[in-house]
């Protein structure tokens, strides 16, 4: 029985890293524009498929495929903002209108991916990343190690960006009050565009890592999105480290539950956690 514990811990850390990574991008958008951008979920799937397209179908070199994926996903995020979110926000639309519009974008993009690439499950292979290492009795692939490393880097990068740069100060100003930010001279349009670009690139990264780790299918976005939303809410909407704590907490609960139940119950467990938090600790762990 004991021999399984290191693997559960490892799986939880891997899943937690992924949820944190997706959650961080989602949180960036929420922190700035204050609505739940469900379209973000489609960006992760889009990232996975762009990687598949570039690396597997077009056979371009790995690093070009990676850069290309991030650029394309960031660009799609930017387009979504320009064509839909920006005009709606300029009109003072309610959060519900933005939520419905983002739901529409999500649905449409997911289906377009399915039309272009079929709904079949696909894998993306980079040989060197498939090797496994054994740490404290747990098997971990190189891809998974990469996932953990990338999450740490993104978290540190975003922390520095938000806390120590003028850009970060502007983001916080917009998040607190966009009108005031405008008055004190923040170029809000520009900053919001950059937020979408950064969040898009993070979504793309998460998507391609999932592709390398387990594989891709058009509906993967909803899974990742909803886990990210849960992580953000149970972490306490409003603080970045809360997202990371929320993500790992969710991952540990899921993996411990799956140990006793079977894998199919994962989603039921995850959403039960969300509901319990909404009921008993609506402000999340960090209580912001």
């Amino acid at each position, binding site marked *: 029985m004991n021999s399984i514990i290191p693997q559960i811990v490892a799986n939880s850390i891997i899943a937690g890293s992924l949820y944190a990574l997706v959650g961080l991008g989602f949180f960036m958008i929420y922190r700035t524009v204050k609505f739940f951008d469900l379209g973000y979920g489609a960006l992760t799937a889009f990232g996975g498929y762009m990687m598949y397209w570039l690396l597997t179908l077009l056979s371009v070199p790995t690093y070009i495929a990676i850069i290309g994926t991030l650029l394309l996903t960031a660009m799609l995020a930017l387009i979504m903002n320009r064509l839909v979110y920006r005009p709606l926000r300029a009109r003072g639309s309610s959060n519900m*209108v933005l939520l419905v519009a983002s*739901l529409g*974008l999500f649905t449409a993009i997911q*289906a377009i991916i399915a*039309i272009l690439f079929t*709904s079949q499950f696909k894998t993306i292979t980079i040989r060197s990343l498939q090797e496994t290492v054994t740490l404290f009795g747990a098997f971990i692939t190189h891809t998974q190690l990469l996932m953990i490393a990338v999450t740490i880097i993104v978290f540190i990068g975003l922390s520095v960006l938000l806390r120590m740069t003028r850009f970060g100060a502007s983001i916080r100003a917009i998040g607190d009050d966009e009108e005031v930010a405008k008055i004190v001279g923040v170029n809000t349009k520009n900053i919001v565009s950059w937020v979408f670009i950064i969040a898009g690139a993070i979504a793309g990264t998460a998507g391609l890592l999932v592709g390398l780790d387990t594989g891709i299918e058009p509906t993967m976005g909803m899974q990742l999105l909803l886990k990210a939303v849960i992580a953000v809410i149970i972490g306490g909407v409003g603080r970045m480290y809360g997202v990371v704590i929320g993500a790992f907490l969710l991952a540990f609960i899921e993996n411990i539950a799956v140990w006793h139940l079977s894998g199919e119950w994962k989603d039921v467990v995850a959403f039960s956690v969300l*509901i319990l938090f909404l009921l008993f600790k609506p402000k999340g762990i960090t209580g912001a």
Partner: protein
Amino acid sequence: MDYIIHLFILIGIFSILGLSLNLVIGYTGLLSATHAGFYGIGAYAVAILMKNTGMNFFIALLLSIVITVLSALVIGVVLSKFKDDIYALGSFGFAIITYGLMLNLQGVTRGPLGIPGIGRPELFDISFSTNLTFLILTLVLAVLVWWMTRYITRSSYGRVLQAIRENEKTIQFFGYTTYWYKLSIFMISAGMAAIAGALFATYITFIDPSSFTLIESIFMIAMIILGGLADNRGAIIGVIIMILLPEFLRFVGFPTEVAAQMRQVIYGLMLVVMMLYRPQGIYGKFKF
């Protein structure tokens, strides 16, 4: 001719879903994505009761309404504490939990295998085994639901629902405990969805969890947002357009799988376009 009847039956079933969902989303302003779950619970209840106990359809229908309303009570007790985007996300959670239960409680639902060979309704000597008779049954029930929604929305109770949609906080100062209103309309709406589920199960004679996913809820949301929130005619027009559209796509010559995805692309984009240019829908009186 049979094909036309088939389409009318679908329109009838989805009209029941649209009308009932409009009570929650259009009149009360609560973006619920749990509707497909109740549709499913109703369908499963009827299918299981009829197959396992040989119960008459109409008794099974009544029981399935009771079961679905009780499920809505359990979910609504939690959900009614929230509003706006948190309500929406919570309802996403319950949609996924409900779907997860249909998939995983294999002892009851047979999981992904589904339940085949469900009988058509019978009443004394009348059998609704032909599509034409089934259409008549569907229309009778749809008209009944139409009449009930009309009564509800024109009552003093319906007026309170609209006030909750407009400003839940304010209406409380005038002596209303909004929680009970939100809970009760959620249950009423779920009960109506159970009728649609019962019809669907006995019409198709086979059900599996794939008909009751979150995406199906989003499809229903799209129908009523297109037709018009808080308007019964609008809900039906939305249903007609959304049901006929994919059929039209098939006629144009898309392969079946692509046509199914095209349906999602179109209703996804429709949500975006409606939010951008006509947030109250074709006929509706209310925008989020």
